[in-house]
């Protein structure tokens, strides 16, 4: 107890104590936040510098990268990504739109979907309508080699932007499928299991905490021409041995399956927590008042679980939108995504400037998305 005695022996004036306490607070915060400032914010500034450099003339791109030449400030690289129009294709018909307009409309639709319920009686029409408009261009069916969409954005003059929309579509479809598949699991655990549910939720999530690469490796074994799936098809006589399903590996379908498999256990957690924290008496009250189970589910359980579902969706959407490992391992050339383009710009293409623009654009999208949604989560008291 020597320290205690030493600390009490000298009485300090209040101002000095205040100062010491402030210095202590700063000292405790500094290592962590300083690290993030230096190795997270400052690097992003360098990305910005690179993205606004003039495209190099005369010298080869590779040489300029090695020399680190950044001649002067210019938005020209951004113009290349954001300038060209994109076209919205709906069932074969297409409309050309400037990209900024698409961005504004998308953010507005997102906000209306999340906060539309506050518009009172209008909300009943606004929320579903804006949700459908928001979702439709990204909804896809991963079948065969590629994603099949009813509607979607593309850009003929801008391969990167087309790739971006394809990535959003992929992430969106993966997140949606994961939420749909994991919801019954969370529901079952929260409502049908006794205290063993905490043990089971760990068993469900455990695969998520194991090595991602190794789980991808397993799919290489399962989905090859003579893998588990094709062998099953051969043995049941659905396919002949010389005619395996060749798009099981190295296609957008593969990327979809692997991403879904990787993330689905994790999604169960936020949904489970949301369901678990609900006041059960609300459900009982609804039933006592004559609501059927389906009605009680639709009007009580689902609205209360909405923040958990939205959080779960976002938890997958954000990491998968920059995904480049899965496409490289199991996507082949058909499964190329936006993240792959960034990786290639910094890797084999050695075009850091273009890569910087792509990376910053991705951050911008993610930040807007997170900011809007986290406001929603805070407003509804869900998420943490």
């Amino acid at each position: 107890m020597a320290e205690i005695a030493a600390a009490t022996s000298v009485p300090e004036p209040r101002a000095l104590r205040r100062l010491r306490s402030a210095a202590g607070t700063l000292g405790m915060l500094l290592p962590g936040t300083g690290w993030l400032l230096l190795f997270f914010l400052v690097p992003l500034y360098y990305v910005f510098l690179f993205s606004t450099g003039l495209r190099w003339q005369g010298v080869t791109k590779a040489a300029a990268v090695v020399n680190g030449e950044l001649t002067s400030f210019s938005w020209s690289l951004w113009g290349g990504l954001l300038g060209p129009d994109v076209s919205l294709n709906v069932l074969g018909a297409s409309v050309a739109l400037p990209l900024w307009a698409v961005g504004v409309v998308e953010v507005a639709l997102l906000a209306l979907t999340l906060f539309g319920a506050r518009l009172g009686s209008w909300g009943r029409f606004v929320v579903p309508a804006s949700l459908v408009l928001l979702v439709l261009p990204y909804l896809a069916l991963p079948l065969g080699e590629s994603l099949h969409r009813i509607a979607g954005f593309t850009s003929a003059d801008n391969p990167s932007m087309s790739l971006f929309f394809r990535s959003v579509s992929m992430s969106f479809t993966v997140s949606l499928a994961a939420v749909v598949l994991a919801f019954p699991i969370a529901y079952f655990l929260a409502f049908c299991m006794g205290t063993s549910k905490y043990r089971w939720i760990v068993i469900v999530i455990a695969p998520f905490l194991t090595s991602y690469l190794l789980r991808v490796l397993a799919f290489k074994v399962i989905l090859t021409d003579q893998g588990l799936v094709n062998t099953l098809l051969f043995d049941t006589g659905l396919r002949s041995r010389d005619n395996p399903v060749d798009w099981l590996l190295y296609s957008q379908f593969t990327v979809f399956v692997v991403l879904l498999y990787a993330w689905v256990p994790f999604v169960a957690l936020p949904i489970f927590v949301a369901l678990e924290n609900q006041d059960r008496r609300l459900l009982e009250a609804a039933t006592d008042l004559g609501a059927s189970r389906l009605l009680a589910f639709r009007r009580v359980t689902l609205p209360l679980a909405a923040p958990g579902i939205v959080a779960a969706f976002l938890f997958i959407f954000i990491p998968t939108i920059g995904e480049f490992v899965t496409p490289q391992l199991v996507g082949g050339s058909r499964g190329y995504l936006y993240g792959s383009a960034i990786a290639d710009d910094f890797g084999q293409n050695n075009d850091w400037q273009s890569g910087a623009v792509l990376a910053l654009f991705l951050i911008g999208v993610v930040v807007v998305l997170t900011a809007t949604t986290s406001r929603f989560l805070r407003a509804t008291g869900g998420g943490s």
Partner: protein
Amino acid sequence: MSAAGATVAVSRRGKRALSVYFVAFVALLYLPSVILLIFSFNDNTVPVFPLQGFTTRWYAAAWHDDLLRAAFVRSLKVASLTSVVATAFAVLASYALTRRRFRGRNAITAFTLVPLVVPPIVIAVALLMLFRKGPVQIELSLATVLVGHVVISLPYAMLLLVPRLASIDRSLEEAAHDLGASAVTTFRRVIVPLIVPAILSSLLIAFVVSIDEYAIASFLSANSETYPVYLFGQIRQAQRLPPMIPVATVMLGLSFMVVLLAEVVRRRGDRRLGLEPGT
């Protein structure tokens, strides 16, 4: 709630359907690991059906793969340093954020969590630019990987520590203060013992995040490949695949054990703080 009967949430039939779905879901979730386990003993140079017979030669091959071993040792180094550094930073920062009052507290908390929502590839290329094109040229090495891994594991550590610190009864500290303990002593003798479980799980999570991290390691490790980077290079080529399967099997087994261990530690901590399980 009765074990078999209907409740307000589910009918009896619905419950049966859900339990069938649940069993199928968990089985499918673990199927790939089982497949890897089977193929790790398969006597064939390509991992395809039909199975060819039992062998342990892939295990032997993996064991004698010196490059793999070197990469693995590097990964262990980076992961253990990452877990210690990130946890230490997070303990200090989360203590300041939950116990001291100052302006911009929420903003700082949010800032420490931001790397969580930034795709890792962006962090990787941003750091690559800082090190290669920044004011000071820094050679890429294991140290640069460490820098990146601390950035991405800090938010996880914060997420584990902030709620735990916030849940500690303040009267404990007030009592220590009234008894004449200095801030440092209170922290060391009162707070730290109470957050030991959270510190342990933070160490574990940061370790797991780092040891499995590919994006940052692939851009920042240069010649000192970490184990995921090496693994990635190997599994891209079909003929290099078989010796990696036993590695996968062993690593998956180990990580399942670590997860279970972490859960046990967490529960014990909850009980110590008198919390309900699962909160």
